């Protein structure tokens, strides 16, 4: 399949989370419209309900995956 011949579409928007109430916000630079806290500052439900831990784990797994790929590339080059 040649993607260049496919119709063009607009990708969906990816929203950030408020790191206090764990609801999605349009902009982390302004107070959260749902809880009025600083969306960048972890706390509240985001921490209490385990979302902070979940996201930290996801980031860690992502880093480990990328590191494993890099290691694989290095080993392939050495061979």
């Amino acid at each position: 399949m040649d993607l260049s011949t496919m119709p063009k579409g607009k990708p969906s928007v990816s929203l950030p989370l408020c790191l206090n109430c764990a609801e999605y916000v349009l902009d982390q630079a302004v107070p959260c419209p749902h809880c009025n806290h600083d969306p960048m500052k972890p706390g509240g439900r985001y921490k209490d309900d385990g979302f902070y831990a979940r996201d930290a784990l996801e980031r860690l797994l992502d880093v480990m995956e990328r590191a494993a790929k890099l290691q694989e590339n290095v080993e392939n080059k050495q061979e």
Partner: protein
Amino acid sequence: MNEMSAPRILTDQDQEHCVPVYVVWETTLACNLKCGHCGSRAGDRRDDELDTQEAFDLIDQMAALGTREITIIGGEAFLRKDWLKLVERISSHGILCTMQTGAYGLNEKMLRAAMDAGLGGIGVSVDGLEEDHDKIRGRKGSFQACLKALRIAKELGMVTSANTQINAISYQYLRKVFDIVADAGISHWQLQWTVAMGNAADNDDVLLQPYLVKPVMDEVAEIFKHAQTIGVTVRPGNNIGYFGKHEVLWRGGQGGGHYAGCPAGHNAIGIEADGTIKACPSLPKERYSGGNIRDLTLEDMWHNSPELAFNRNRSTEQLWGHCKGCLYSDVCRGGCTWTADSLFRKPGNNPYCYYRVSTLEKQGIRERVQKIEEAPDTPFAVGLFEIIEEQI
């Protein structure tokens, strides 16, 4: 995520180039159930359903366009004599083939043959506790048939899911339904609102009133958390949402994963058994047919039919009512096209939304829907409903 859901995960590339990743294909309208909420009014097969060779050609065309998963549905897909050949042809392209079924008459021999043909998994519709399910499905014994099929498929090593419609009958028993289907070994439980189409538009008492969306989803959130502890994924369907405090629980994470708007015609295709191509299998043919595979190629329709392309530019121009001014309007764009269109004969205003119900509740307002015009007696027919706002 597992092998049953992974092909459907959209990449930016899929979205930028409108790859029809996921296809839902009504291979026949023949059905051995008579469901009181059936949108397509299935029962008898269509007079002009695609024959085997035509179906093979369509499968090949889907593969050429980049389709990664095809769900065969009906009616009842296994009532087609050549259904295993279709499964085999789909699988031969490396496309994941799954089947959505009422499971009445689906026995071990058939499931084993389906697995040998390459069927990757089954989703069985379970719409309430036994008495309610058998009543709404119009067939005594259909509930037990569902559980039997799920258990056999699980024993055979298939990925199994149950799909439950949330409506005025089932909403009170969701936890009990979950416990039963979880005991039958499912890995996924998918939920969806019953939509005002076909038989459900006739029997509109079955529709959940929008103001109940919030308490029901609050309960689903509790079931979700419990399901996680026993290894079952609760998955909200496209018409369940949107945003609010539970979105992060079942769809999201930091930096995305939330509901991103209706994929119909952008990354999804629906096919009727007579070869009609639509953006979503549940949209009415009269206004949403992109053409017929007997007249045009799939590629031609996908590239040139405006009836398939309406979601690709993601504008908010179509929005009206409370969806128009919503904080999430540019992301959600009124949610499921089918749900809104079935109520109002046009998309863009969806009262079945958690964030909307919560926001209105804070203002002391609730919404209910009321039928003002009956639906015609045809498959995928819609009536006309209006929204009544009430003070709480």
